[in-house]
């Protein structure tokens, strides 16, 4: 349990993001919640790849004879970070458009499509 504290931190970040999505009534806050979940998942991937007392998996000027952390999660995290940037940019622009047309960011007013 105590050894897995980093995973618990990751899960708490994801849970905060989910809570924001469920109960916060502002479009920008919803975008922030999505970013929270994203960062939690990225942190989860990085945490999976850690190896105690190991160095970054780069041979340039590396201390010789040291173990290296797992490289794959870092590659996956790089990919998912860029995807997160793309998602955030698009969602914020759409929120700006909604603000232009509706004049508000409250989710209770942004519901012309229902039923």
């Amino acid at each position, binding site marked *: 349990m105590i050894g897995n504290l980093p995973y618990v931190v990751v899960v708490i970040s*994801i849970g905060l993001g989910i809570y924001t*999505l469920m109960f916060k009534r502002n*479009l920008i806050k*919803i975008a922030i919640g*999505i970013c929270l*979940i*994203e960062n939690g*998942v990225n942190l*989860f*991937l990085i945490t*999976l790849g850690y190896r105690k007392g190991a160095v970054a998996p780069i041979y340039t000027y590396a201390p010789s004879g040291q173990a290296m952390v797992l490289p*794959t*999660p870092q590659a*996956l995290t790089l*990919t*998912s970070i860029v*995807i997160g940037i*793309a*998602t955030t940019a*698009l*969602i914020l622009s*759409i*929120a700006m*458009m*909604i603000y232009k*047309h*509706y004049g508000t960011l409250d989710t209770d007013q*942004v*519901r*012309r*499509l229902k*039923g």
Partner: protein
Amino acid sequence: MNLSNHIPILIIAIPLLAAFLVPLISRINKKATGILTTLALSVSLLLTIVLAVKILTVGPQVYVFGATSPSLTLPSGLKFPIRIMFQIDAMSIFMGLITAVVSFLGATYSLSFTKKYDGVDKYYSLLLLLTVGIFGMEFTGDIFNFFVFLEIASIASVALISFRGVDLGEPAEAGFKYMVVSSVSALMVLFAIGIFYGEYDVLNIAAIASVIKYSQLDKIALGLLMPVLAMKAGAVPMHMWTPDAYSEAPAPITMMLVAASQASLYALFRVVFSLYNISLNTLTVGWIIIIFGLLSMFIGVTMAIIQKDIKRLMAYHAISQTGYMLLGVGVGLAVLANPEALKNYGITAMEGGIFHIMNHAMYKGLLFLTAGALFFRTGTRDLNKMGGLAHYMKYTTIFFIIGAAAIAGLPPFNGFASKLLIYESVYKFNPLLSIIAMVVSILTLASFVKVFHSAFLGPKLPQFKEVKEVPRSMVFAMAVLSCIIIFFGLFPDLIVKNLVHPAVMSLIEQLQYTGTVLGGM
């Protein structure tokens, strides 16, 4: 260099290259973008057909990026794949055929449909990217690569849904809602991928399937993967994004969004059948999928009856038809554990469900295209404002009748064949489910009678004096879909025997899926 080995990647890379080229081409000539899009998609359609013939005769194809052999053997003796690969079996190519046909017809339809829009080059670029995303979701054999293509498809479809968001508020709202739910689902998928990676240290689906042991973490991963993929497929009660997105997107895009949802459905089946297969408690998961199907069928069709917006109504029907697929495949999964029941009616139920995917893509696409044709000429989607359009739009009326008869399951159209398979096999499993499915089919017919009456029948209304038939390319797209529907309706056995049955078999037999990569271990 022998190009015939590279068909799987060319199917995806040619539309991708075209998508990158379109913004540069549009600096020179705005008109050429649509032609380039249609050409690229027709090339990928031809390549998909060639690949389908190859797969159905030779067997599943594996295409590895950056190496020649799919898996390498470690000194420790165990062999596993380290590179990304495409793994295309009968089920993948079945979905790929649907995607190729739908995207090609969508591009053809758009040639005339996007006359009113500005920024057409971005529209075509996004359409190509959406096609690439759907193809990748269906072809890939690497679970993280699946996540990447899922995001490509989601972002492209969001940008296309909110394409008219400059002038109107509703498309932006629909796009926002779809963006939120799809990014949540994609992040849940990524969390599940992290769980798999942390447990088995491989990212290839077949490799995970060969070592999976259904521990507590695997259960949680399944519990995260199933609902979000069902949500992307539009299963009740997570369907609320579907009417918004489908009704606000341009009509050809709506047709492609149906294909995108079906790609998520394919991913759900792939996870349940190829990744877990017999290791999971098939009765529980099967009943979960069956309950999804029942709720989707019934609530979808009953909500559709009270709609006033024609595309919203059709979107609710899309939900209700997705329920049929979930029902058929869920019955197949529920009896996966005992072989004689599977051989008795399970395989038939799955054939019905899988066959219904293709039929649904065809007739729902046709119906959305007819709705787009009505919107193109009359400028409204409100059924209360329409009426008497059959006097002006003869071809559209005929195509709408064909599509409505097919979705309502009237013989001799293709909807009846797949629904008949589902009815008879599900009746052996549990008669109540089959009866509910028939009631839903009757309600579907009722609501389409309503649409037909209020949009096409009735006297000539004065405000539609100058309405005339839609341009030629739109008629062409709708005509091709109608011919496909009639052909499937007349000769369903050809499709079931040659396309659907191998697809079902490739879903059921997990060892064949893993064996193609890992060499029968």
